[in-house]
């Protein structure tokens, strides 16, 4: 049972309105009360939804380049190794020998962990998801885009499309998996966008696709075709 006062505190906590002392006291209550934690989660989701009430704007394209550039730099940044100083006597050699043994043990442990990780990945298809970013090509609108999350282990995926207007009457959009071991793209079904040009659907290619290199969306005759005929509107690799 949650009191009204706790509910009030939960709402203020979800909005980040409690002071540091109140925050800390409320977090102690949270740890001991599962029902209260559930309520806070619900209220946090409500707070998240509130963001969508802000007037809709598009983030400038240059911002993504800026951010991607920065994370690339951070990823590639290498911490320089400190210069080793030359020294004499048996102690440094003993330390070096001990380190060599230790490194050997670490290497063995790493191999073991990598094997375990590979086993876990093999057992859990969720860990084998590959993302494909699909970019527009004429005659698609320049701001049309799609993201595909592809799970080879499950032979299925989810595609999310935005800014792609519904096709003219008598036409449909069709999704294709481009697989290295198939001569022709494999149909992954018809995709229907809503009136806002948005679609989010699960799909499954009609044939096994174990080496997918790209996904593409083409404009085809209504109901789809077994082999791609129409123009490609969106295409992308990993």
């Amino acid at each position, binding site marked *: 049972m949650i009191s*009204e006062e706790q*509910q*009030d505190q*939960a*709402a*203020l906590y*979800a*909005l*980040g*309105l409690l002071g540091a002392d109140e925050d800390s006291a409320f977090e102690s209550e949270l740890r001991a009360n599962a029902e209260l*934690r559930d309520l*806070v*989660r*619900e*209220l*946090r*989701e*409500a*707070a*998240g*939804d*509130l*963001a*969508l*009430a*802000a*007037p*809709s*704007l*598009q*983030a*400038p394209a240059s*911002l*993504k380049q800026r*951010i*991607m550039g*920065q*994370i*690339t730099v*951070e*990823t590639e940044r290498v911490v320089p190794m400190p210069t080793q100083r030359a020294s004499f006597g048996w102690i440094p050699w003993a330390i070096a020998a001990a380190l060599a043994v230790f490194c050997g043990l670490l290497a063995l442990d790493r191999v073991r962990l990598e094997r375990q990780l590979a086993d876990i990945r093999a057992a859990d298809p*969720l*860990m084998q*998801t590959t*993302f494909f*970013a699909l970019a527009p090509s004429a005659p698609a609108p320049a701001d049309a*885009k799609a*993201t595909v*999350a592809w799970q080879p282990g499950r032979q299925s995926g*989810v595609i*999310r499309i*935005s*800014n792609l207007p519904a096709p003219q009457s008598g036409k449909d959009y069709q999704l294709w998996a481009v697989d290295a071991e198939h001569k022709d793209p494999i149909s992954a079904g018809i995709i229907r966008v*809503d009136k*806002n*040009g*948005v679609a*989010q659907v*699960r799909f499954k290619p009609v044939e096994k696709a174990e080496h997918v290199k790209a996904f593409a969306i083409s404009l085809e005759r209504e109901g789809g075709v077994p082999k791609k005929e129409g123009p490609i509107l969106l295409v992308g690799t*990993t």
Partner: protein
Amino acid sequence: MAETSSAQQMLDQEMIARIGRRDQSAFSALYDRLSDPLYSLAMKMLGDPAEAQDALQDVFLQIWSRAGTYDPEQSSVFSWTVLLTRSRVIDRLRARGRRSRVVVASTEDSSTTVAGDASTVESAADTAEKNDEAARVRYVLNNLPSEQREAIELAFFEHLSHHEIAARLGQPLGTVKARIRRGLLKLRERLNNL
């Protein structure tokens, strides 16, 4: 859930897990999905495109470096990133002492709150038309009892404390707390049932 279907939540969580393993393609996909609503929120609170972009950059760098700390038990990925954004924006508002300059416009008339150059305004109108989820949230928010909606908007978008809201509205503190709580719960319930 209003913003995210269960399939989308699964996708988001998978992207966050991959970002935790330093997967730039997952980061790029998550950026594509979240940047517009988060930028819109930052603009609503800051009212300045350059500052909103800086705030968003901080947020996404934080997502990149802290993806491993995301806890799905506490919130969806979308709500987590909204709260990160709000937190970074509030830091900026505090640091620059600019609370008095916050855009206060109502969510009922989105066209009056957009700051920026002409192309941004144009794309904003275009996006607003297309954004069904946002339209649902606005619809529900605008149909809450006005005193609840007012309290929530002051708390969320202006980051006024409950004490400040009580002072501004001339209402007892307990009344303001109850309005915020009831409004948030009603918002959630109606979005779930819509």
